[in-house]
């Protein structure tokens, strides 16, 4: 009887910890909703001895040249999994999903191609995305956003 109580207490504590953790913070799917402005693109080289440093604009031009997000300035995450990418010239609508434990942002385009970004930081006012890229040297590109709405 005593051992049953001990086991029940342990399992109930586990469930309690889970429920309190989950309910103490909103889901990334909720936090990401709204309009985000691209602030800067950075590039971190795998080989630090490479002597070229890239400006935010150069990074965007090179690391993002094959990506649809390349010319976007504002990203608006809409409920229902739609993302509006607003640029100087035109707007695009793509689909978004969050995967894993809430650390992967998946963008899906009309032709069913997908791009995946690591959601390194996501809170009420700032979002940081990382993705691997081969510019002239291998490295990680980093996009920083600030929330507008």
């Amino acid at each position, binding site marked *: 009887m005593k051992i049953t109580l001990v086991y029940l207490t342990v*399992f109930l504590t586990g469930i309690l*910890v*889970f429920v309190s953790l989950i309910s*103490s*913070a909103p889901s990334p799917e909720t936090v990401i909703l709204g309009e985000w402005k691209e602030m800067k693109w950075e590039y971190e080289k795998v080989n630090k001895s490479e002597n070229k440093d890239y400006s935010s604009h150069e990074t965007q031009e090179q690391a993002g040249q094959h990506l649809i997000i390349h010319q976007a300035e504002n990203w608006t995450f809409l409920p229902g999994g739609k993302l509006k990418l607003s640029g100087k010239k035109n707007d695009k609508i793509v689909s978004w999903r969050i*995967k*894993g*434990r*809430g*650390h992967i942002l998946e963008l899906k385009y009309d032709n069913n191609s997908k791009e995946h970004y690591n959601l390194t930081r996501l809170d009420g006012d700032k979002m940081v995305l990382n993705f691997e890229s081969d510019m002239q040297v291998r490295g990680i590109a980093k996009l920083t956003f600030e929330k507008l709405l």
Partner: protein
Amino acid sequence: MLRKFSNSRTLDDNLKLGTLTAFSAGMVNIASLMIFFSFSSNVTGHYAILAEEILKGNWYQAGVVFSWIFLFFFGSFVSNMMVIYLNGRNAYFAHALPIILEIMCLVSVGIYGQFFYRETLTETEALLCLMLFAMGLQNGLTASISNFAVKTTHLTGITTDLGILFSMFTMKKFRENEMLVGKAKLLLSIVLAYVLGAVFSGLSYFEIKFKVFYVVSFFLVLVIAYDFSKIRLLRYLAVNRTKEPVSRDPKSETRKVRQEEGISVV
């Protein structure tokens, strides 16, 4: 594969169980990584991620990772409960039950993924929960019935053991030790089966998507069916033997077969 328990198991029993279940675990792990971007057959990385999420103050993510670790633990707990509480009545049933539960979990993931999955985060996390529970069940079972010789869902311990064994094999006396050589064969087979399963899963995922979980379940059915067929064969042989006119004690024959089947004999 499943009938025998602990020290009564032979190397051959462990080899069959180890390779088939490691192949399944490799398949599940890569499928979950490709579909859900998270591992499901090992929890070492999840412990590190849990610590990282706590440090960052990402409480939601910490909760999710905590639940995955907890379900892997719970799977192993349930599995061993079945073994120790039901082993006395029917060893085969006690050992097959966790695999049946595992198959049910994996088939559920396959069916849900194929027909209902809308790719929301809640669904992703819940399906990963099921897969981690399934892997906990499998690892708990194989470790429990093999006296901790067979663990098939992660390779950290196995790689460590192989490193130790291969360093021992630099000495002749250890190379000639059949038990150690047998252990090395078992561990290498598990590693190879796991990697093959992972590659097979990765390749087949592009073609069959969520149906890959039916393929994993098929391999697990093989584990259950192999022993079931052996039991049927043994029963058939026992019945035929008792029909023979030679004076034999049918009770002792039945007792022998029941012992081979892993059913307790009073």
